């Protein structure tokens, strides 16, 4: 029997029976969070704070920028188990809390994520350069000439074309070869 027609032996669990939220920095302006909230955790919330508060609240994520001490709340729904979160600040540390939103200013956290850092997305300006020979640091200043090197790099154009990736083409070729996708879609354009 063909592998693809072999019945799926394994069914992966929808959850692992725990209360947890995991955060990943996808790119300078996007975080990805996934979570699961156990039944026990929900019961604990109700026992401690009351069924009324549970019923009057809705699930939400509190996104905290730890680098500039700001935060915002995103209303989500009971069915979601992951979310892509737009953030404004590259190069910042973030943490996300899953919890219940009672009002615009009242959020009760249930579980907190790990910390992540959004990557940088620009050439930084720097004053000092340190040089080392593996073991010994030395200080020097070559910044003046650096300007000419960056001029040549045409950074503005690179920003627009970022991610011209070698693997995209080669892997497309590896995995699409059985499907006869036209070369015109990738190459052959005059």
């Amino acid at each position: 029997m063909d592998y693809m027609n072999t019945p799926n032996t394994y069914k992966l669990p929808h959850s692992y029976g725990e209360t947890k939220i995991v955060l990943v920095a996808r790119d300078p302006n996007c975080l990805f969070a996934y979570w699961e909230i156990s039944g026990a955790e929900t019961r604990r919330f109700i026992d401690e704070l009351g069924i009324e508060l549970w019923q009057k609240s809705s699930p939400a994520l509190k996104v905290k920028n730890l680098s500039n001490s700001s935060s915002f709340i995103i209303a989500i729904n009971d069915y979601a188990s992951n979310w892509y979160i737009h953030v404004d600040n590259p190069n910042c540390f973030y943490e996300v809390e899953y919890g219940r939103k009672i009002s615009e200013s009242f959020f009760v956290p249930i579980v907190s994520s790990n910390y992540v850092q959004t990557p940088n997305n620009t050439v930084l300006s720097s004053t000092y350069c340190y040089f080392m020979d593996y073991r010994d640091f030395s200080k020097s200043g070559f910044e003046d000439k650096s300007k000419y090197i960056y001029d040549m790099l045409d950074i503005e154009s690179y920003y627009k074309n970022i991610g011209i990736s070698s693997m995209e083409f080669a892997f497309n070729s590896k995995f699409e070869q059985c499907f006869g996708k036209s070369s015109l879609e990738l190459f052959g354009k005059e």
Partner: protein
Amino acid sequence: MITLHKGHVAIVLHAHLPFVRHPEHKDFLEERWLFEAISETYLPLIQCFESLLDEGIDFRVTMSLTPPLLTMLTDTLLQNRYIDHLLKLIDLTEKEIHRTKNQPEFNHLAKMYHNKFKSDLIMFKDKCKCDIVNAFKKIQSTGKLEIIACAATHGYLPILSNSPEAVNAQITIGVDTYKKFFGVSPKGMWLPECGYTPMVESSLKRNGIEFFITESHGLLFANPKPVYGTFAPIVTTNGIVAFARDIESSKQVWSSHDGYPADKCYRDFYRDIGYDLDYEYIKDHISPDGHRIQTGIKYYSITGKTNDKAPYNPEAAKEKAVLHAEDFIRNREKQILYLSKYMDRPPIVVCPYDAELLGHWWYEGPHWLYSMFKKIHTEQNTFSLITLKEYMDNNPIMQVAVPCASSWGYNGYNEVWLNGSNDWIYRHLHKGAERMTELANENKIAEGIKKEALNQAARELLLAQSSDWAFIMKTGTMVQYAVKRTTDHIGRFLKLYHDIKENNIDEEWLMDMKNKDNIFPEIDYRIYKTM
């Protein structure tokens, strides 16, 4: 070092295929990825390097050969299946020579393929003794080729990095596999998909890795700003050297609009007799279920924006590859002459490519590489080829900076491997890493069948982590296979986890899994214990 050259070019070829080995099936479609890469890329590259050596051409090239590829290339089952694959192609090309006898524009191509597959067979069986890894190893011993390591199963490290143990296992097992095959320690590592996050550094350092390669903005957006841009490596605060991909030379080869492989003279990749010929005639050479696939026999050139393709002319295509080699050299000369005015050290232009681009995708790629290396040696003095390690030895004083988290995927960060098509896998991959560490912590010593189960759990987790599966899910083709592979490996891991916890190991099933997923025979699950 005194040199006439004003700078250097480092060609880096990354050779990788996911681990695809299905002993349970007689003819498995996806195993052809390996067979095609052997015929179209790995054997031609070996021939290219050996010819240059025979001709006394001084060249340098850096290559990564990933652990799944090393394992598949040395696997007896797959070696024998490759030979069977070649024999079928030789049979098909014999039929093709007969079929095209009144079509001279195709008949000489049928003969070309016939001779090519026959010579592949001789080279593979008689010359390489079926061991392609050893052929690369021999070339490495000349000092012209430097082979670097890669992570165990090409796991995409930035999204695995919330488990330091998972990252460490990928890197350590990658290094151990390299040592097993090459008998020495690797100096450099290819980070899968150029996926860098500062969190990989401690494990790289622990494993004696001295350098890695990032996407251009891994250095351009580093902190502080590297004064030489991508044209000199930096050293991280952990003392590891980071090189970056050059923007201009990447574009020359990879651009879908004006990259070299798009030239109309070159062989069209997609037009293949597997699609073109009558079903009855070709049925023995396509998928057993009748699904049409590529055979590797292609008679047309890219031609242009038309479906009315012109017959392929190998001589004209080879001439064009030489012209493209000259163009590449000319542009590097200009680049290096400019840069050398402003740098106090020789600039290095780092040009990484997927090895399979050359030959498999861009059929004339190996000839381009051969011509380029020859002309760099004989026809110019502006720059020389160099390996990354050589550059470090010659220019050991480097700027200290922290590279920017980055990858060479679309948009430059993690998006290709983390989006709506594949994000479901991370809940399981992260949980798997956590549970593997739990098992390793709980079983400081294990013997017999329990030890076998723990080691197999580690193998299944590693196989589930291959970046290839998330990538295929994103590209939208062969998705079913990638989903099934991910589900199977995680499913097997979870079963092993429960069986071990419950002390109820299904020995027969375990041995079956060990036979199927037989990568890393020497693995020690204790690599996952809490760091």
